């Protein structure tokens, strides 16, 4: 049972082979900063974690949250403020940001699960807009200027995170932890109940599962991990701005997940990589970035709904190797 349900099993791989593939990727992550500009890789890691957390809802529970930027941004602001003004140690600042997003997720999720389907998306979008307006108006967020010059601090009070490699390995560690947590959630009995809700909610309900509680818990986990990504992002870039709470960001994470392959373990990370590479190349073209992002969105929805990883899995099923 547990073997058949492991990630790679959908392609017919043995558990050993799946483990080997993950180990290979983990090692690749260790040498990556020597080959590519580390700050870019860290940005990809943050967004990959963000999208993976989002995928837990969209891909595995079937809930489209259109307000996930709220969790990314709220945690980012709280962490930034805690490090800069209150002088918190780095780890504690990140934990605080994550906790705030979890609480926020409890509030927003609790309201949104009262309606299903497309209303869920509209409610999360609206409530995230409240967070955006708060970020614009409150004093500690710095309004349009955002938070600047957030100190990275020292890891456990010993290792300074100002060096680019130290920061990278710390960020990589946080990413791996978050990714592992999501992986475990997906493949736990809890994750299977989530998928049954996605497939057929009335049946899950009739089997005796308290569907609303499962949805809410999935929402809180997803919000907390999105917050973790946001906190990490603030530490990496040493700043936090309104971009992270804007609804454009909520749309971007949907795009990453869709493009990579929703409901797949690796999809959101692949999608995050693609979107960020694209944005990096287009950064000199002003509004054309938005236009091209929109075109990719439209094409993805019309002709590429399985995403890159989804297509790859389908291909690997057809031609096993």
């Amino acid at each position, binding site marked *: 049972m547990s073997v058949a349900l492991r990630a790679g099993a959908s392609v017919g791989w043995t558990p050993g082979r799946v483990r080997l593939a993950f180990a290979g990727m983990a090692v690749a992550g260790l040498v990556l900063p020597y080959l590519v500009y580390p700050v870019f890789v860290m940005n990809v890691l943050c967004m990959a974690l963000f999208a993976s957390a989002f995928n837990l809802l969209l891909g595995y529970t079937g809930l489209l949250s259109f307000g996930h930027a709220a969790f990314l941004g709220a945690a980012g602001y709280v962490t930034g403020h805690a490090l800069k003004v209150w002088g918190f140690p780095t780890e504690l600042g990140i934990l605080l940001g994550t906790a705030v997003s979890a609480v926020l997720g409890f509030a927003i999720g609790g309201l949104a699960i*009262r*309606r299903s389907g497309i209303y869920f998306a509209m409610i999360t979008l609206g409530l995230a*807009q409240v967070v955006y307006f708060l970020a614009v*108006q409150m004093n500690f967020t710095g309004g349009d200027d955002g938070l600047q010059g957030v100190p990275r601090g020292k890891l456990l009070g010993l290792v300074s995170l100002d060096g680019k490699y130290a920061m990278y390995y710390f960020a990589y560690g946080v990413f791996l932890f978050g990714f592992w947590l999501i992986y475990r959630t997906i493949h736990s009995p809890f994750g299977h109940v989530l998928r049954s809700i996605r497939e057929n909610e009335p049946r899950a309900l009739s089997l005796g599962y308290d569907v609303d509680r499962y949805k809410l818990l999935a929402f809180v986990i997803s919000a907390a991990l999105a917050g973790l990504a946001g906190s990490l992002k603030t530490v990496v870039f040493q700043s936090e701005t309104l971009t992270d709470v804007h*609804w454009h960001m909520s749309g971007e994470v949907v795009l990453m997940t*869709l493009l990579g392959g929703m409901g797949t373990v690796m999809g959101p990370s692949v999608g995050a990589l693609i979107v960020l590479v694209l944005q990096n190349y287009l950064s000199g073209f002003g*509004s054309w970035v*938005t236009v091209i992002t929109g075109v990719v*969105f439209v094409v993805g929805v019309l002709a590429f709904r399985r995403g890159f990883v989804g297509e790859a899995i389908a291909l690997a099923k057809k031609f096993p190797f």
Partner: protein
Amino acid sequence: MQALFGQLLLGVINGSFYALLSLGLAIIFGLLDIVNFAHGALYMMGAFVAWIALSSLGIGYWPALLLAPAAVGLLGIVIERTMLRRLYGLDNVYGLLLTFGLTLVIEGLFHEHYGNSGNPYPVPDVLQGGVRLPFMYLPQYRAWVVVVAVAVCFACWLTIERTKLGSYLRAGTENPKLVQAFGVNVPLMRTLTYGFGAALAAFAGVMAAPIYQVNPAMGSNLVIIVFAVVVIGGMGSILGSILTGLGLGIVEGLTRYFYPAASSVVVFFVMAIVLLLRPAGLFGRQR
């Protein structure tokens, strides 16, 4: 007192736009099962068509009031024929995502061409000036907007509830397959419905042009509020969405007078309260 009535008037005007837009959203959602995120972009395009027509072709407000909805409605028909059509039968999440992508494309293009500063659009000559009432000053154009918006909403409601065409539309919303079996061309009806919804949004855009500044972001900020309006009212009822739109505009106006800091979020707070007390929405039937 002057200020209070001024804010109330502004609230009623905002509410008129909420009503016009949520009406279009409800009609499109009813028949196409698509939540049209692009509604705000279509509204923005309506305003821009009017502005471009005036600034580069010298075409005034009154022709624009017909021209802009026609142009945007045509674009809506093209969008439905080439894209939305492929999503029928799929989870309606995809419709939201597609129209979101379209919004990015449209807004990005306008942003690229016209920048993000607001472009003023003059009030037409006939409606210049205003009336001094005992308790406030009423600009004629604003009175015109409220009257026309309410009239258009009422006409739509009447068409849908009381005419043969409206009965097709309502039947198509309930059960498209059966209506098709009776010989009604449902795909054509869907195309025209989306075109009409787009035209309605553009019409609202032209009406809005002299009041708000014409800029590429004017639509998407509005559409998020209109979504909240739709959640509060429930999309099942046409009259419900009109009343909710107007009512929330007034609530917003009052908030702007009594506690200005909360005016941009009050609609979402009302949404949260409604979700707690009446999860199905004020006029909604099912979950």
